[in-house]
């Protein structure tokens, strides 16, 4: 069994209204040091084999076909033991 972690973030050029709203809330709470917040998503995936190279390729396909919309999002893949 292998575990993969996928992190999906909005591309830097894409406006993130939710992140902006969270940033505003933090500032209202007195956390004025938070000067920028970008919201993203994390997916933890368990694979039913132990081939890391295969896992990387499979998870990449999952990302491009469903988990991320590459028009507006970037993704990173970590293969964990």
């Amino acid at each position, binding site marked *: 069994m292998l575990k993969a972690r996928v992190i999906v973030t909005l591309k830097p050029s894409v406006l993130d*209204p*939710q992140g902006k709203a969270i940033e505003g809330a933090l500032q209202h709470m007195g956390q004025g040091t938070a000067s920028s917040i970008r919201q993203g998503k994390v997916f933890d995936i368990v694979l039913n084999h132990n081939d890391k190279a295969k896992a990387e390729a499979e998870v990449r396909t999952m990302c491009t076909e469903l988990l991320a919309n590459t028009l507006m999002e970037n993704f990173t893949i970590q293969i964990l033991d």
Partner: protein
Amino acid sequence: MKTAVVVFPGTNRERDAATALKAVTGTAAHMLWHGDSELPQGLDLVVLPGGFSYGDYLRCGAMAARSPIMSAIKQAAERGVKVLGICNGFQILCESGLLPGVLQHNVRPKFRCHTVNLRVETTNSSFTNLYAQGQVINVPIAHGEGNYFADAQTLSQLEGDDRVAFRYCTDAGDITVQANPNGALNNIAGILNAQRNVLGMMPHPENHIFAEQGCVDGKALFESILAA
């Protein structure tokens, strides 16, 4: 004319679409379920109605775009069957690749539910042929994610190929930032595919059909399909 309305889990405007279709075509629309893998024979039009398919999980329209019925709809669209995606339906069409671009969160993170003015940007489509070029129509919107975005190349292709169907505008038909409810690029409210038989739009023409709704500006869109 043979029409169908697709229902996904979380769709909530299917009856509005079906009522509009019945009123204009005189025939009841077929109601299709997301798990169906075939469309009725001889279909002229498929409508993907508004709502919150799959609870907007992952991204709006993302899950619905991968449901079994969408493969059949893609094949039908290639054969020339007309496809109209309204609101969540537009989001689904973008996620499925039938239309380019993506609908992002409104630039001000707020659900916008009111009427807007739209300028008809092209009459060269099965959906707009009974409108006048540049005509201003009044249609409701109800969405939190209607901020149309596409990369520069896609955008210039849409503009250059006359594929922008509607833009948000003022009463007088001017395209201004103030008239744009969601931050959509170039005030885009609706676009066509390259074959011009697929239209996606955020506003709800199916809700301005009857006099008792206060406005009938949406009716010509459905009549255009009938006339095409």
